[in-house]
């Protein structure tokens, strides 16, 4: 089954949100447009709309997460859903229950939507093939593969600042190899039609044949940032800073850290993004993170609107069907 057919119904409406790969330009754009509408909700005195009233959303996190889980929870609550947070990393599976048994148990509780984070690539796909047909699955990060809502909130942030995607050059810097965010960004940016996507890092952190995803590879930070409109820094996990992938955090910062001086080669109005949490002095200089070039905190607040949009779109399908 292709990404396309798994994620959308025969009418082309969003059914599950697993990956930005394989979704059309118009579908990605309508996610952004819907998020635009939901962004207003948080400024109302009552920060709620009744779209998911009576629905139960389960945050199914097999891997620790703070910001993604809380923004999904807030988004679901603002849509008036009931929210169940399950931290599986410390519960059922550690007692030996298999993933499918956990899913059966939750289905028996009549849940409507699973927000899934899992350490293994393809986990959200797997869960989608296992659940009852009325349940929607939203991927909140699977292994190195995909983190589509993060990519869409970044697209939302870029559109806010730049308007049009077509003329943009975007550089993604750091650990591309292990990054689900990078893969999702690359697909989304290419589908939305940017001029160029670059990935910047040492060969040890660039996955093989990544060019086939539609990117140019740069080992040199200065060449990679030359003339770009958007710089997306990736998080470098601590365990990867030492060992066979990198000699040290310090060496990485000297070569690929985003500093005031290196940022000068980018366009004057280039924005700086980061999926968080940031490592100051490892990926990014503190003064940049706190400057007006940085849109890192806006990314977080846009996360709520994007997640509201995606959840509403996935559930809208069933409401339409109910009326038919």
């Amino acid at each position: 089954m292709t990404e396309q057919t798994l994620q959308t119904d025969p009418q082309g409406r969003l059914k599950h949100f697993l990956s930005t790969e394989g979704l059309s330009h118009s579908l990605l754009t309508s996610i952004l447009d819907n998020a635009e509408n939901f962004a207003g909700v948080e400024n109302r005195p009552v920060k709620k709309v009744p779209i998911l009233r009576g629905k139960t959303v389960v945050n199914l996190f097999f891997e620790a997460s703070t910001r993604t889980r809380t923004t999904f929870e807030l988004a679901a609550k603002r849509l008036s859903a009931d929210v169940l947070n399950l931290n599986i990393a410390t519960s059922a599976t550690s007692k030996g229950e298999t993933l499918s048994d956990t899913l059966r148990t939750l289905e028996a509780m009549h849940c409507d939507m699973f927000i899934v984070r899992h350490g293994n690539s393809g986990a959200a796909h797997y869960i989608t093939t296992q659940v009852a047909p009325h349940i929607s699955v939203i991927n909140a990060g699977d292994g190195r593969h995909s983190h589509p809502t993060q990519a869409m909130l970044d697209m939302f942030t870029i559109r806010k600042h730049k308007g049009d995607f077509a003329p943009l050059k975007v550089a993604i810097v750091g650990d591309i190899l292990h990054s689900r965010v990078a893969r999702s960004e690359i697909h989304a940016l290419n589908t939305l039609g940017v001029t160029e996507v670059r990935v910047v890092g040492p060969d040890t952190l660039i996955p093989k044949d990544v060019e086939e995803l539609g990117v140019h590879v740069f080992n040199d930070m200065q060449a990679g940032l030359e003339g770009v409109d958007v710089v997306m820094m990736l998080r470098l996990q601590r365990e990867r800073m030492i060992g066979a992938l990198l000699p040290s955090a310090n060496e990485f910062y000297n070569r690929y850290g985003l500093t005031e001086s290196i940022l000068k080669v980018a366009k004057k109005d280039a924005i700086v993004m980061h999926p968080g949490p940031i490592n100051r002095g490892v990926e990014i200089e503190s003064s940049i993170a706190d400057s007006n070039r940085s849109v890192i905190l806006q990314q977080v607040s846009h996360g709520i609107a994007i997640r509201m949009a995606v959840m509403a779109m996935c559930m809208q399908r069933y409401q339409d069907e109910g009326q038919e």
Partner: protein
Amino acid sequence: MGIVIEKGRVIDPASNLDKNTSIYIDKGKIVGVGKKPVGFAATKTISAKNQLVIPGLIDLCVRTREPGYENKARMDTELAAASKSGITSICSPPDSDPVVDTPAVVKLIQQRANEIGKAKVYTLGAITKGLKGEQLAEMHALKNAGCIAVSNAQYSINNSQIMRRAFEYAHSCDLTVFIQANDSGLQNNGVANEGAISTRLGLPPIPETAETVALSQALLLIEQTGVSAHFCRLSTARSVAMVKKAKNEGLPVTADVDICHLHLTDMDIANYNVDCHLQPPLRSERDRVALIKAVDEGVITAVCSDHQPHDRDAKSAPFSLTEPGASTVELLLPLVLHLVEQNKLSLMNAIAALTSNPAEILGLDAGNLTVGNPADLCIVNMDTDWQVNREQLNSMGKNTPFHGWYMQAAVTTTMMNGKITYQARS
């Protein structure tokens, strides 16, 4: 009791025979090919009209899952599945539980095989205790108990000194070493071929060098120790070139490939198809083409099933968490003949790669239709049309990547020692 198989197209690669003729069987042995022995009286006549009559297949790698993994499969079910593919002999790797590193386990397997009586089971002994790559196994004792060769299965021997000593010791026991070349450091926690597919799916990659680095190390130690070696499950074009060169230089090496790698590539993983989670991983189309060419040219002389039946739970998880391996034994012959239908292999070469060549690798006078040898053979209808359905497999393992494929060839009769072990319903 005399049996005659008449009117079939008899193909025997060992004697380069391809002729419409009859085969005469008495007391479990072949007593005549094309020529009725004096005084032969047929009590049973089998018509093989418009069908092939070929030696029984010898499959170099079938995991029956006994002893130790009976939740996945049992020897009786898997040998029955094998006989459906015309197989009369299998080679069983040492990675059972317990590992085949003591004579008792060899005898246990032999006893079970004799009880079942569906195929001859040849056992590979472990080359190191527990397949741990730390201490040599008692190879001499294993050989005396009936092991046909020694191997560390899919586990690498990380210490090259131990590998050298293991090869030397095997050589002095006059045992062939079966090697699945794999560098565990380069393999790391990989689950898919390193390339555009693993990058797109975010699956931990296995580079080509995981195989070729280990292969080149093994070749140098084979040269040094003089041991005879058989390379199992080559998966890359580069490995083929290396083995070809070694053979040309006169090293005592042979090689096989499993049937999945001749039909599938990493593209077939598509969106995390767990039935395509194999070890070695499915490689690129370029590799697949090179592997087929290697079989055609005789660089790779045997094709095996590398049968790994799994229970449902083993394949019911996100891709990386599933166990590698496919259930393939009963599709081996139709899938190899599928390559003949596609004009990728000659019929004679294809059959040799399943019969006389694996026999030669194992040092057996088998896989042929020689008068005086046991009547191990099968009859194949080359002109059927059937669809693979995982639920209808005889194997307990339903984990086939070939579900839904259409096949032309089908075995109608399999015979071991002159006794019918499989007969298709007409």
